[in-house]
């Protein structure tokens, strides 16, 4: 079984066949980290590709972050941080594919980004923007599965329909791994920090997260909330169970949950608006 998984990991992680990333990405990755001058330099490199920076700015202006006025890449770096901009840069082509092929998953991802942002702010957690980003990216593994293993994907969908199981259960059965783990691999292959890759990899199993359990717990709860709300379409028709470890580590209670749900439902209208704007004026309302 392990062999199957490793083979799959190789196929999936074959960077040559991953959705094409613009050349600037390679320049970004070769830059030294935590260097003050590199922030400006990074902004300059990203801004040199206009289409690419427009894509990043569109994500940076999504309701997941709650600003609406990020107009330049250097602005985004200051407001959201280098890690976030880097993650958005890497994932922008995946989001492009999501937007075209699966608006439901795109809406789900945006929704989870918003929910995670609300929870993080409500609990006054540090690094809110990073948490939102991990939440925004938590399902990128699903896009990779559908790109790289379209046959398996069809089988996974059939299994979900026939056996009424969760998507990750069907994935484990058929490809011996799941979208969370694949998303984690992908984040690692982009050299994103653990605080982003771990919540992505462990959002269905918070206990597995060792170093960034709080962030992982937020992404897990945010995912449950959006599935409970029925917003977007993650491919799962059932709400997953709230993991006790996540509830405990965030010290949640009924009151906080109720407040977050109220605020979230209000915000989701904005997400819908954002999604409609992206799809253009002729798109259907639902």
């Amino acid at each position, binding site marked *: 079984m392990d062999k199957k998984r490793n083979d799959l990991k190789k196929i999936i992680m074959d960077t040559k066949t991953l959705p094409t990333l613009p050349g600037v990405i390679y320049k970004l990755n070769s830059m030294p980290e935590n260097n003050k001058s590199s922030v400006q330099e990074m902004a300059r490199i990203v801004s040199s590709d206009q289409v690419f920076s427009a894509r990043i700015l569109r994500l940076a202006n999504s309701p997941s972050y709650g600003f609406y006025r990020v107009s330049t890449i250097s602005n985004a770096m200051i407001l959201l941080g280098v890690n976030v901009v880097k993650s958005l840069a890497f994932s922008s082509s995946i989001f492009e594919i999501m937007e075209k092929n699966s608006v439901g998953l795109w809406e789900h991802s945006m929704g989870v980004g918003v929910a995670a942002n609300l929870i993080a702010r409500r609990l006054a957690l540090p690094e809110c923007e990073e948490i939102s980003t991990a939440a925004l990216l938590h399902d990128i593994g699903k896009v990779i599965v559908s790109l790289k293993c379209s046959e398996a994907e069809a089988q996974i969908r059939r299994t979900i329909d026939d056996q009424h199981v969760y998507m990750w259960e069907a994935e484990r059965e058929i490809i011996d791994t799941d979208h969370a783990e694949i998303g984690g691999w992908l984040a690692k292959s982009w050299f994103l920090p653990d605080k982003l890759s771990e919540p992505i990899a462990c959002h269905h199993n918070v206990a597995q997260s060792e170093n960034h359990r709080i962030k992982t717990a937020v992404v897990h709860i945010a995912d*449950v909330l959006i*599935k409970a709300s029925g917003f977007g379409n993650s491919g799962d028709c*059932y*709400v997953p*169970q709230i993991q006790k470890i996540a509830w405990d580590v965030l010290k949640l209670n009924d009151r906080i949950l109720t407040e977050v*749900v109220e605020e979230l439902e209000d915000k989701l209208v904005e997400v819908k*608006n954002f999604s*409609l704007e992206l799809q253009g*004026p002729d798109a259907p*309302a639902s």
Partner: protein
Amino acid sequence: MQKIPLMLAEAGMILAREVYRNDSPSGMPICGKDTVLTDALIVRLDHLDVKTVYVEGHPVWADGDRSLDDMLLDLDRRFEKVRHDPLTSKLFDIYEEFLKRSMGDACGQKAE
């Protein structure tokens, strides 16, 4: 009353709350409560970058033509696998309550 994306606003809808610039409740309202929306007004609000408006009634989108019972049935279905779990069923209760409340004043009978 319903909060809707400006893109789904149509002429004839009535504003249930004042509209503020950038959705921020501070500063001067740019359009008063009870104003009847017109196409020209919607375009102007769009130019001012207004993203959402509150309108009377529950005029818009899929939920609008589904009854509360349908929505509760969907909710039940989504939670099918986790109703036994004490934590997740709390979330079910919160959503059930939320739907009942938000659909309850859906027809705009309950003034704010």
